[in-house]
């Protein structure tokens, strides 16, 4: 037979029987002091002939004397009751019925179901005071503390994983960042995120930091940009306090440097960073870096640094797709407490391609709503998009129509003449439509004039082309990418 531990109810039943027996032989005072105060708390049947029992006393005084004076009686009585030879061990501790340290709330707040109510409210000196150690108080103090800490570190508290929209272009980065923040130092070290402007590198970095603080508010963390790092070193050298600087950075448990490409070409800074990097990775303290390009493309970066960056996990964050931009708009507008319908969000996502500008536009919408009392509708959105667009995108692109057509032609590897001509080959037609669309949207040319550039087509044909592209843009991501690419090359050339 296997050993069996009796349940608390069974144990207490045995103990009650035991008490009843002993009560007969003892005076009330002795019984209360030495028996009732020192109950049986554990009973285990080893096999059919043996059992072990624990007697728990409130103090060592009780325990010593129970053991000395009542051991034989207890052993005998318990053995008879269990019909086994009982071996008693004596323990000291608080008794289960008044378990110490249980924190109870005096008065339920908004959520009575989740918070226990003290069974005897008359013990509370003032019924309208919330407990210092109620879950509510502890939680809110914790939140305040973390907020203060992240403020000191220089983090944005709204940059968290919850507010980060994930799609195919950034899901790898998101997954890696989550892994790093859950197990800093041990999953991917260093984590190197790179990508263009406004793709969410900084957001992810802050989210990692915020998440680490949530789980461990005490962790020593440094967040800075490559430029700040550089400036600090320069200052430390100037004021002859390089030692302080080194101690500070090398004792960090988590080091986050944004735009690390900035230290390229600065020898003393790279040297210092190299040693900091080694010191931290040796202690498996987490390092997270971001850059606008991969290490191998950062010019003037020392080879030893480059190879160290490449030893970690490098992740490319792509430009946000149309769907992701829509999701970002919805998320960000939620964070700012304004509601934008999905159709309007799509409308914004169509024209705005960087996540950072999305934030600006949402702030503009909010100010229009809050300050001018306007309603969020298509008209408002269009107006805001128009005014917030960078100058060169606002139809004052300093390009001639022929340059636009040339760029489109180059992009599709077709001849300019063919685009302007009458051929109805499929890829030519697409290129022609895109060119018309761009002439309309980027240069704001009248339809009739656009028609003239394309073998004197009628303005309705142009209108049809523009409408068609606009419609396709809504669902065709490939087309979105191509048009955005052509736009960019128009701006740069």
């Amino acid at each position, binding site marked *: 037979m296997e050993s069996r531990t009796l349940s608390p109810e069974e144990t207490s039943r045995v103990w009650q029987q035991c008490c009843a027996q002993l009560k007969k032989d003892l005076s009330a*005072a*002795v019984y*209360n*002091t030495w028996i009732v105060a020192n109950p049986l708390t554990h009973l285990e049947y080893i096999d059919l002939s043996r059992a072990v029992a624990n007697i728990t006393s*409130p*103090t*060592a*005084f*009780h*325990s*010593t*004397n129970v053991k*000395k004076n009542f051991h034989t009686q207890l052993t005998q009585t318990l053995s008879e009751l269990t019909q086994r030879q009982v071996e008693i061990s004596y323990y*000291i*501790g*608080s008794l289960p019925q*008044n*378990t*110490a*340290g*249980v*924190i109870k709330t005096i*008065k339920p707040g908004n959520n009575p179901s989740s918070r226990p109510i003290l069974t*005897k409210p008359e*013990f509370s*000196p*003032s*019924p*309208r*005071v*919330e*407990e*210092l*150690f109620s879950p509510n*108080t*502890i939680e*809110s*103090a*914790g939140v*305040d*503390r973390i907020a*203060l800490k992240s403020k000191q570190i220089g983090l944005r508290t709204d940059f968290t994983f919850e507010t980060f929209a994930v799609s195919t272009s950034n899901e790898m980065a998101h997954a890696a960042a989550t892994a790093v923040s859950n197990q800093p130092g041990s999953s991917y070290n260093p984590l190197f995120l790179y990508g263009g402007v406004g793709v969410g590198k900084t957001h992810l970095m802050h989210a990692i930091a915020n998440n680490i603080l949530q789980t461990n508010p005490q962790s020593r963390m440094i967040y800075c940009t490559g430029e700040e790092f550089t400036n600090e070193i320069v200052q430390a050298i100037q004021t002859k306090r390089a030692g302080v600087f080194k101690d500070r950075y090398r004792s960090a448990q988590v080091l986050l440097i944004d735009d690390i490409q900035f230290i390229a070409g600065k020898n003393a800074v790279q040297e210092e960073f190299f040693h900091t990097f080694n010191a931290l990775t040796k202690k498996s303290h987490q390092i997270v870096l971001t850059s606008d390009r991969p290490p191998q493309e950062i010019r003037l970066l020392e080879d030893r640094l480059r190879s160290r960056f490449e030893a970690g996990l490098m992740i490319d964050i792509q430009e946000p797709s149309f769907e992701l931009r829509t999701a970002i708009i919805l998320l960000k507008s939620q964070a700012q407490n304004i509601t934008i319908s999905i159709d309007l969000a799509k409308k914004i996502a169509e024209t705005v391609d960087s996540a950072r500008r999305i934030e600006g536009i949402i702030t503009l919408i909010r100010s229009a709503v809050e300050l001018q009392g306007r309603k969020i509708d298509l008209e408002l959105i269009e107006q805001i998009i128009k005014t917030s667009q960078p100058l060169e995108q606002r139809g004052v692109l300093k390009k001639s129509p022929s340059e636009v057509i040339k760029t489109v032609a180059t992009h599709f590897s077709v001849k300019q003449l063919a685009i302007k001509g009458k051929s109805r080959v499929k890829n030519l037609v697409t290129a022609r439509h895109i060119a018309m669309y761009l002439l309309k949207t980027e240069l704001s040319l009248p339809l009739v004039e656009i028609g003239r550039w394309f073998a004197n087509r009628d303005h309705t044909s142009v209108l049809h082309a523009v409408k068609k592209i606009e419609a396709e843009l809504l669902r065709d991501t490939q087309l979105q990418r191509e048009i955005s690419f052509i736009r960019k090359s128009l701006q740069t050339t």
Partner: protein
Amino acid sequence: MKFLVSKTTFHTTLQKLQRVLPNKPQLPTLAAIHILVKKNRVILTATDLYLGIQAPLESQIESEGVVVVPGKLLLAAVSSFPEGEIVVTETAGTLNLVSRASKVKLQTLSLEEYPEFPEVSGESVLLATSDLLSVEQYVLPSVSKDITRPVLTAVQLELTTTTFRAVGTDGFRLSVFGTTTESEHAKTLLAPARTLLEYIKLAQAEEVSNVELLVSSKLQQVLAKIGDVLVFSRLVTGEYPPFEQIIPSESTTEVVCEADELLEQVRRAHVLTSGSSHIVQFRISPELVEISTPTTTEGSFEGVLTSAKVTGNPLKIAFNAVYLLDMLKQFSSQELRLGMTEALKPVIFRSQTLSSFLYVVMPFRVV
């Protein structure tokens, strides 16, 4: 058994044991004093099982022996004696106290029933009497008297090799006293408030600068050596609340004022709060700090703090006057800083001139 002792010595030694003699003992033997005469020492012992004290008695010994007598009775008898020498003897179930002109006979109690003391061993740590006095002054007033939550009736003592910290709370306010010290071992223990009070009284009576503690975590016992006196006490088991987490980290409203003025105003306000659960309201604005009580059938109080300097947001907040009075006394003649965030979030009190102490109070919910 026979020994000679001066009345004054006998009386002062018995007084050291007095506080562990319960008024209503479960067993008569728990309100008794155990007298042991062995070799060249007389040792008096008393225990109520939660606290036990052993004190040596300076005397002239003639023969050895051991006896248990009712404690209160012995104390009363000895204190009634005139100054001078008392001869103590034991004969067949009677303890005889004989002076020049009087003789008292006391019935003794059974020796077998007297409880045995646990054997405590463990690492030793030292507490300075001065630190214990600070604990009494700053921490003990906050400790709970509610026995349904044993952990809060204890003071958490935290010793590291370089620091000493004592924490007390009743769940509505929190006192933390911290200072630097030197200790061989690091130790954290939950000592009952009553035990600490006993240490403080005995340390003062024995005029010692240190109390040595032997802590046995297995037995949940702590043995204190205070001069020649030994104090046995249980430790409280359980988990102390996470007090560090609720100490406010930041304040958005700060009031700097003279503690004495605040104390006086709260005291005046308190007179009129018996009908309103001791509520004292504060209306804090950058220009003015107003103190008032809710109007009841008895009346109301209104006052201002003239010494107050306010920074941050205006705030309305209410406290239990008792919690303020208890603590404001300790800050007497100091400049006090109150750090607040919201009307229902903990408030921190501290003083720059008393950096070793901080006090946190939970404000009232004013309906």
